[in-house]
């Protein structure tokens, strides 16, 4: 365990070194995060310009969901996707062999290969959205709800990570998958809306297949004090099962892996 913590630190450190080399990224990322926070809200603005509430969500409440969306987006871009994108590169160039040769868990190694620390600036945008939305509502979050939502943040991170591992595993089976991350972010984009707004098939998909509801809607509901305890419990169990499933798929993909360099 200690060894893995040490490895994690070394990988984090080299990512930080890399990040510092591209110093303008700090400003650029800051600007992008501010910009995307505003942009994330624009569609919301248009929809609520036409209606006061949709499926039981008022504008500030829905804004809360957008806040979680921005936060999770920062986590994906900063901690999850950079590493896993490099796996796709490895597979294409046949250099994954070098990773597999190392005497440590391959999933751990590839998952911690790269971070983008500057992306953390996006978190500030999320915080601003939370504050604004509660001021609009003229209230403060429930204390218990706030704790629950932080717990849910952890759960969603694990869930997102597992989804990523599953997506990357697909790259072992098909030749060229450069835009896997693009697919992921474009589907994840739907998470900026409260999941209960959707109807029919789309809703079923976003609750059970790609559980976007858990990631942004539940934490927002928790902050509003509207989330039931059983939902939290189900989320926890579901996520654990999902993570285990992703691990199994990963191991099987690795076993099937044949180097592209032949």
């Amino acid at each position, binding site marked *: 365990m200690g060894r893995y913590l040490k490895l994690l630190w070394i990988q984090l450190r080299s990512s*930080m*070194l890399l990040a*510092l*080399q591209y110093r303008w990224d700090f400003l650029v990322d800051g600007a992008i995060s501010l910009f995307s926070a505003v942009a994330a809200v624009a569609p919301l603005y248009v929809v609520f310009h036409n209606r006061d509430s949709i499926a039981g969500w008022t504008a500030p409440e829905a804004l809360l969901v957008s806040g979680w969306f921005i936060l999770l987006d920062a986590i994906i871009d900063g901690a999850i996707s950079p590493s896993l994108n490099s796996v796709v590169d490895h597979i294409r160039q046949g250099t994954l062999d070098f990773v597999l040769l190392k005497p440590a868990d391959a999933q751990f190694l590839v998952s911690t290969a790269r971070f983008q620390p500057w992306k953390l600036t996006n978190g500030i945008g999320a915080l601003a959205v939370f504050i604004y939305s509660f001021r609009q509502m003229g209230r403060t979050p429930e204390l218990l709800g706030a704790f629950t939502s932080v717990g849910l943040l952890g759960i969603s991170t694990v869930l997102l990570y597992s989804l990523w591992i599953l997506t990357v595993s697909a790259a072992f089976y098909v030749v*060229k998958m450069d835009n896997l991350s693009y697919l992921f972010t474009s589907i994840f984009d739907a998470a900026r809306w409260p999941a209960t707004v959707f109807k029919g098939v789309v809703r079923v998909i976003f609750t059970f297949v790609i559980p976007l509801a858990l990631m942004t809607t539940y934490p927002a509901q928790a902050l509003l004090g509207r989330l039931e305890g059983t939902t939290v419990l189900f989320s926890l169990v579901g996520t654990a099962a999902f993570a285990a499933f992703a691990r199994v798929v990963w191991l099987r993909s690795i076993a099937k892996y044949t180097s592209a*360099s032949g």
Partner: protein
Amino acid sequence: MISVRGLAKHYKVHKRAPGLRAALRSVFSRTYDTVKAVDGISFEIKSGERVGFLGPNGAGKTTTLKVLAGLLHPSEGEVVVDGHTPKKREDAYLKKIMLVTGQKQQLLWDLPPSETFELNRAIYEVPRAQFKQTVDELAQTLELGDLISKPTRQLSLGERMKCELAAALIHRPRVLFMDEPTIGLDVSMQATIRNFIKQYNERHGATLMLTSHYMDDVVALCPRVIVIDKGALSYDGGLEDLVHRIRPEKRVVFYLQREAERAVLDGLGKVVSANHASAVLQVPQEAVSETISRALATLPVKDLTVENAPLEEVMSELFERSRRAAAPASTGNGKAP
């Protein structure tokens, strides 16, 4: 054919000390170094010549080749290839040349090489008949067989390199720049590629400039070598002359019936190596025949050969000498915010 006068290529690179703290500091202030990758070299190459371009890692070989191919603009100096200025990248020029690198490929990764050939035919506007003839010729001499109809990703490194070469020659370039074309290949594949390059040069009179770490490539292909070190020219002339200049001694290898006494060997010349079956002596050129006749009288010789010193040794000796001769490396130092 190729004329290079006072070519220089300088880069500005960000200098960074190791460690997190230094990295943090570099966010606010940066120091830059000017690296003189190539620093004033001149040479002329005639049409149809095969020239080896040698030097240690980082000597500026690849940079020079890239300048010649028009991919890099020179910082100083004048480069003319067959009447063209490479950096203008005129179509007429690009159709005459090709740059082949062992490490980068142009073949479409997930399609068979034949598709890349076809693509190059269209791009280089090779007439159908000539295209067919060229492909047949290439397929025959390189023994491509059905390789050209398998997806590139399924080929081995050597097979890929053969197809890569074929793709590079579809338009029958008159000037070939080759950067480490045999890197990573096994010995027999290296020989195949080498023979092929020589054949191509002889058949089409193409001019060839080649860098390689494998001295066998150079010995087999290049009667003339240009050696650069730290961006400056350190030798330009015949390969034979180079060897004679650096290592005038010859190597005489005696194959023995039984082990010879060390004292006897020492009496004949400088012993490079000796064991129960053979002995290698290094002797001045003018003393070769005398040494041999003395050895035949005193040693149980079965057979013998006379060789030059291996080129690897010659090269490392040359680089060593120029290192000793050169003043401490002169790289400019500039500061920028």
